[in-house]
């Protein structure tokens, strides 16, 4: 049976040598990341090359993505949030394309690596913290001190707010990582059952193998949903966190 973990292995393509004790290797993951960048860039540039007033299919697709992300940003973070629109759009497209790349047979799911999802989450939280302090100074700390709370429970509320803020990068990164990892492992395991049944039980195995096949097909559909949904969830949570940076006194 094929190893369900095999699909997450990083395969080196070339090495840049060692920098500070770590070897810098260009792997299949790096290739897929650059592939996503190239795809998103090509898609947007190709779609907008005519600058048509009445859009074609490709231009409609890009415009819809634009409007979709823009409306998500506006509804969660207000019009001031639009200064982060390129950031949020890049995040959404990057995660979406990487998730979908993972659905290509033989492809690689970059977002199933915790270091990448953590880097994405850290980027979001880092942006929130840096922008929050830059824009509001120490007033940004009001984020942890909600107004209208009685003084005697304020320390408790503040502690909870601090903990919830600190857990954000963890929950944000682990949610995406775990969803992609678990989904792909499940898919691989069920697909592996088909081969195991066929080779182990002979003719009967071929018949019974229909069950995991059906399951694999259903899971594939589900995984496409998860791929898109997790990209959206990451995006909308980013917008909500950015809203905290824009309007800390909630």
């Amino acid at each position, binding site marked *: 049976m094929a190893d369900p973990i095999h699909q997450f292995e*990083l395969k080196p393509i070339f090495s840049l040598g060692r920098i500070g004790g*770590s070897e*810098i290797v260009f792997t299949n993951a790096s290739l897929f990341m650059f592939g996503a960048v190239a795809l998103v860039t090509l898609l947007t540039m190709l779609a907008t090359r005519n600058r048509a007033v009445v859009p074609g299919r490709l231009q409609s697709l890009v415009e819809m993505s634009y409007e979709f992300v823009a409306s998500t940003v506006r509804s969660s973070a207000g019009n001031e949030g639009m200064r982060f629109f390129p950031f949020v759009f890049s995040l959404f497209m990057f995660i979406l394309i990487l998730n979908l790349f993972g659905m290509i047979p033989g492809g690689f799911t970059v977002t199933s*690596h915790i*270091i990448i999802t953590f880097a994405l989450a850290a980027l979001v939280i880092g942006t929130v913290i840096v922008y929050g302090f830059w824009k509001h100074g120490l007033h940004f700390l009001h984020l942890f001190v909600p107004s209208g709370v009685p003084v005697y429970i304020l320390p408790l509320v503040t502690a909870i707010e601090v903990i919830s803020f600190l857990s954000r990068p963890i929950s944000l990164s682990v949610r995406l990582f775990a969803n992609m990892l678990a989904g792909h492992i499940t898919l691989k395991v069920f697909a592996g059952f088909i081969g195991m049944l066929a080779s182990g039980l002979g003719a009967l195995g071929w018949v019974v193998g229909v069950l995991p096949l059906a399951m694999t097909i259903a899971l594939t559909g589900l995984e496409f949903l998860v791929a898109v949904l997790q990209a959206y969830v990451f995006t909308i949570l980013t917008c909500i966190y950015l809203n905290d940076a824009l309007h800390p006194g909630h």
Partner: protein
Amino acid sequence: MAQPIVTSTGATPPAGAKAAFPPFQTETFASQLLWFAISFGLLYYLMAKVALPRVGAILEERSNRIAKNLEEAQRLKEESEAAAAAYEKSLNEARAKAKAIAQETRDALLAESEAKRKALEAELAQKIAASEAAISARTAEAMASVRGIAADAAAAIVERLTGQSPERAAVEAALNRALAH
């Protein structure tokens, strides 16, 4: 190529020894982060500087164009409404004018015929009066000659009967007496 990354560090794992779960191989983190930073940075730069302004410009141009076209349509609609109102107005004016002209003509014709009638009547009345005057003059004349004739006839009768002509004054007096009856 088909080997796990750990082999690239030179330490080939012994057969059967399981390598760490790939996402938790910490020795890969540095290179993963580096390539992530480069690729995502590149994507952000391309989106923020090139792609998104282009899409935004297209969308803005479209909404501007739609707004402009709607404005133009509104303007044309107002124009056509104004033209319809002007047409209606001129139609009403023409109607009123036609009515006035008809009335005027009718009045003029009426007045003219009235004047003609009056003139005719006056002429007729004048003629009647003239005729009446002529008649009465003739009558008076005739009456006057009747009296003369009567006096002459009476004088001739008296002369024939008596053989001598009567006094003119006596004849007149007798006539007056006879006419008084």
